């Protein structure tokens, strides 16, 4: 090839390189723009509505007086139940799979199940909960059912995060522990769990962020969309001082409240929906952001 032809041909090919660079950035920009538009939309329409009254009022037929009190209290209580079940089960399962499980068909079966469950639509979890928790076990349309459902939903997230965190611990540490005569459980308790706790925590936060925003499964088990009361308080001044009545009480959660308001045609309710959405987005952004930051710090600080 003549030298000048060579140079021209190279220049032509490199032009495509540059074009693709632009294309890639454009594609990213679409994501950025959507996110900004979404956030701005929520903020502009809803931020003005978010004030102390908004957080402390019940929903009402009058949009100006409606608030998210029952919704965020419900969300908090449901999250408590979710964490109560998902964290121990998920971490225990993760520890088992990484430290104790042998390579046999049972382990394979468990692993296949976990991968599969991660891809099941959330509404199917709702159907499971409806049939199993609400009807079969008779927990009813309650916070307990919701918490259990969401726990099952985020279980794969917690398990995978636990496993990855444990996997990054070098074998040398385990061997050091065993060489000193520790049992497997002691090694897990005093070494494995503490060292992987940051990674596990990251996974838990991501799972909870996901659970807070879930609507479909909770609607399916029958959370009502208009709740103008709070579940009974867990502690009271009279004996017995602790009560579990709140577990079986009807309830609502933040995403459902937003759904309810979005479905109303009146413009004023849509403002409320935007406000609720704004609060939701801030919450999930904060949680996801925290998890990302934790992971970043982890990667920089851990030097085995």
């Amino acid at each position, binding site marked *: *090839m003549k*030298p000048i032809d*060579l*140079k021209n*041909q*190279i220049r032509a*090919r*490199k032009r495509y390189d540059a074009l693709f660079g632009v294309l890639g950035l454009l594609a990213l920009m679409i994501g950025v723009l959507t996110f900004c538009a979404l956030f701005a939309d929520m903020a502009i329409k809803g931020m003005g509505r978010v004030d102390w009254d908004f957080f402390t009022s019940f929903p009402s037929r009058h949009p100006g007086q409606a608030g998210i009190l029952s919704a965020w209290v419900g969300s908090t209580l449901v999250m408590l139940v979710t964490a109560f079940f998902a964290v121990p089960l998920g971490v225990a399962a993760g520890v088992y799979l990484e430290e104790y499980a042998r390579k046999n068909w049972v382990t394979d079966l468990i692993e296949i199940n976990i991968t599969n469950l991660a891809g099941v639509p959330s509404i199917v979890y709702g159907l499971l909960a409806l049939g199993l928790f609400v009807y079969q076990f008779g927990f009813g349309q309650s916070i307990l059912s919701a918490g259990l459902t969401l726990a099952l939903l985020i279980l794969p997230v917690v398990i995978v995060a636990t496993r990855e965190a444990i996997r990054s611990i070098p074998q040398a540490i385990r061997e050091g522990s065993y060489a000193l005569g520790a049992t497997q459980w002691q090694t897990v308790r005093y070494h494995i769990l503490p060292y992987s706790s940051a990674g596990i925590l990251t996974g838990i936060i991501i799972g909870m962020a996901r659970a807070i925003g879930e609507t479909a499964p909770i609607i399916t088990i029958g959370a009502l969309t208009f709740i103008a009361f709070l579940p009974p308080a867990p502690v009271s001044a009279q004996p017995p001082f602790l009560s579990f009545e709140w577990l079986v009480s009807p309830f609502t959660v933040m995403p459902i409240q937003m759904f309810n308001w979005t479905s109303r045609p009146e413009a004023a309710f849509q403002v409320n929906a935007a406000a609720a959405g704004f609060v939701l987005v801030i919450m999930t952004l904060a949680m996801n952001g925290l998890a990302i930051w934790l992971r970043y710090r982890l990667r920089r600080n851990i030097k085995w």
Partner: protein
Amino acid sequence: MSAPDMQMTATLAPKADVKGLDFYYGDYRALNSISMPVYERQVTALIGPSGCGKSTFLRCFNRLHDLYPGNRYAGEIVLHPDNTNLLSAEVDPIEVRMRIGMVFQKPNPFPKSIFENVAYGLRVRGETSRRRIEEKVEQALADAALIGEVRNRMHEPAYNLSGGQQQRLCIARALATDPELLLFDEPTSALDPIATASIEELIHDLKERVTILIVTHNMQQAARVSDFTAYMYLGEMIEFGVTDELFIKPAKKQTEDYITGRFG
């Protein structure tokens, strides 16, 4: 060099001249003032202990270091006959790589068919004529002594071939674009002795047509295969000479120490 050497090299033209080459990884100087000729249609071997910079030196020839940030060249590598300085910032690395081919330590065929692997270089420079591509592919596979074994399965995946066959495929791939200089980076260190022998024989046949520069950590291979040898240590060129002379009667004590295995 001795008198017979000088006579021999007087009749040879250099394909490339390295002049005062320095190379920096960031602030660290990995190559220090290297100067040597690469004679046309001869096999030149680069030997030296691990970490002496021979692969680093080799990769300067096709600007492969440009792929990674923070690297810097100083000095020149002048390619003849047009006297282009390959290391110049004005010379596009792609242009350099279109004139100079490379075979790597571990065979790295693409996830494509045998035919498409060899045709890759041609397609990438815009060759569209099916007939021309088929001709060149067949010729390259013949030059790489592979055509007999793959003639009936040209469209099978390259991964089906054995290690030695894959390496010869990589050689064919490099040959298909008629390179002016062919770089070999420890081409047989991942292969068994039989495959190694076939590659060495191939190199011997190829030098009739293309200049070859080969890095090897195996001194015996250098002695078997090359016409000229350069001994490197800690980023510097210690000695350069006719292979037979260098191995029998090295001029420098350092070279002698390495060759006789006093260190490695």
